């Protein structure tokens, strides 16, 4: 069996402080959860694969940015040329949704036109727990409905997940991976290779 084809894309995580961006990644990449992880300073990097088909892998180069407002000025460096953005908010925090919306607006203006944006509500476990504790509550619990309708309106992918339990985490990354311009990636790769051959500069071995 031949090695799978790998298409590589850049993904950035944005969102308010302590909504669980780093925890979401830690769950995705290593399948674990830690209470009280240190805050991210500047940005953190990792690379992680998503297998879409037996012979097709999407490899994400992921930049996990710091959430505090003071670090906002650094963000363009990380969303520049990004193919995808996960804009994360806390399903129990209205402020964090407002912040997410402002990130979406900024991305629409500043980031690449083709960028795929997913709005991701984290801490689903807490939301479910609250719902379970007051089953007859007539009042609104959490901000799911607001977030969902905003996402539909703005044409964003929408997910709810829990970094703590792992619920739905895979679905987020798989969903985004499926939206990646995979064919364009491979055709531009081929073009580059062809170009290299045309120039006679290709001294590296064949990959097949």
């Amino acid at each position: 069996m031949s090695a799978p084809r790998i298409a590589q894309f850049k993904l950035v995580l944005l969102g308010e402080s302590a909504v669980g961006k780093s925890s979401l990644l830690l769950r995705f990449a290593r399948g674990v959860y830690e209470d009280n992880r240190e805050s991210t300073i500047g940005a953190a990097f990792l690379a992680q694969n998503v297998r879409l088909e037996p012979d097709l892998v999407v490899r994400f180069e992921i930049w996990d940015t710091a959430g505090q407002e003071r670090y906002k000025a650094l963000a363009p460096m990380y969303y520049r040329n990004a193919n995808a953005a996960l804009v994360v908010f806390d399903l129990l925090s209205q402020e964090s949704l407002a912040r997410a919306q402002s990130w979406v607006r900024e991305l629409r203006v500043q980031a690449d036109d083709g960028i795929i944006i997913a709005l991701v509500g984290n801490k689903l476990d807490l939301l479910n727990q609250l719902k379970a504790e007051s089953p007859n509550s007539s009042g609104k619990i959490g901000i799911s409905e607001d977030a969902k309708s905003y996402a539909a309106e703005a044409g964003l992918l929408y997910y709810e997940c829990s970094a703590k339990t792992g619920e739905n985490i895979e679905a987020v990354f798989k969903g985004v991976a499926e939206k990646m311009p995979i064919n364009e990636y491979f055709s531009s790769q081929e073009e580059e290779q062809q170009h290299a051959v045309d120039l006679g500069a290709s001294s590296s071995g064949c990959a097949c």
Partner: protein
Amino acid sequence: MPSKYHDMVELDSNEYIFGEEGGRGTPASVFFKKIANMSQKSSKKSKPKPEPSESQQITVGAGRSHAEHISAISDAQNVKKKGKKKQTSSERKQEHKSSSGHAHHLANMAEHNDSSPYFDLDDDWDTNFESTIIPKANARSISSSNTALSKPEPSEIAAKAERDELNSLVSRILKFQTALSAPTVDIDQLRNLSWSGVPPDLRPRTWMHLLGYLPSTAERREKTLAKKRLEYFNSIEQEFGNEGSMNQSMWHQIAIDVPRTNPHIKLYSFESTRRSLERILYLWSVRHPASGYVQGINDLLTPFFQTFLTQYVGTKKVEDLDPQQLTKEELDFVEADSYWCLSKLLDGIQDNYIHAQPGIHRQVQKLEKLMTKVNSELIAHFKSENVEFMQFSFRWMNCLLMREVPMTCAIRIWDTYLSEGPQKFSDFHVYVCAAFLQNWAKDLVNMEFQDLIIFLQSPPTQDWTEKDIELILSQAFMYQSVFKDSMKQ
């Protein structure tokens, strides 16, 4: 027999090693440059050449607590008394993995020296300081006279190095004690001493002096401390007294960051620690509205908090301590002192935390410029891999490398930084970052983008000790001496 005069010369050589205003008058700068020039490899080889053994001496300053020094000396004494050919303590084994069997030789050497008076280590140890040093210096002279007759075993030199190291430790502590107990503390002298590490037991007081928090004049100290502590608690009352007037967004950010401060150290998991940190950070933030609280300042507070706690519990226990075990007054003092010292530290680097963080951007640019001089090959490689300095060194600047090295190493770095002074240390920090980066250069030049970034954001320093960080500091000192002028252009 060597004369008394000769003994004194031997003692002076210790001073020389530590680069103070010692008998030979060799400036510290020359010495450190020399140390820095020695490659890391040569100093790690166990083959005991005279120079590497010097380099080991330079690095022993802060490694052990007062009590540990005494127990180490006591061990040596036991070996001498019993003449047993074995290691005397697990600590010793750990500290000198490379020089196996040296205790055996230490015992041999000690036999040359049987006439040395026994002194009681538990009781008023430093009053007998001279008598500890001098007999050992005698042994050293004997060993050098042996050298003249026949070539010494390499292991004898190792034993000599061991003994010199113990002498240096004792000598060093004594120097700090003398400096600190002077009616007016000579801050320049204290700076010189502290650059190469502060003995843990004397660290709280030394840091307070270096930061200018503790007045140098003895008679003013108590009054000033009392005033400052009262001022802190009045301010706390003022800021926390009326919840409605609190800056909620600032408070929110602090409240979510404190529980995730040093999560790997137990001390920071206790509620009383967290309440103290919250109060300190909030007060600092509202009193410095131009920057306010910025993530990472929480990290910078912890060396103070932890170090000042050691006044009451000792260095070893502090990381597992529930501060509630202290009296309320003791904990209050730790909290107030930590606040003021954090303020002093941040005074010199406020630019790092104001809007757009210009201080950090400047430092990152400086680091890049400096690295083109230190290792242009590495810079070329970074360029070809599209690695930007901002991507990995932002945090180095924002948290003063605290996220990159274990806490004991961070604290040791601070000995040097605080001795540089609040206005100057951030300049030196860029050189330290350069030495830190260069430390991994051989690996880095063979890595591609992803591996490079992943490596640089979590370099393998988990097992680092103070000795590792001292090599980085020495290297940084060398870079500073060599590149300082060209960096100004």
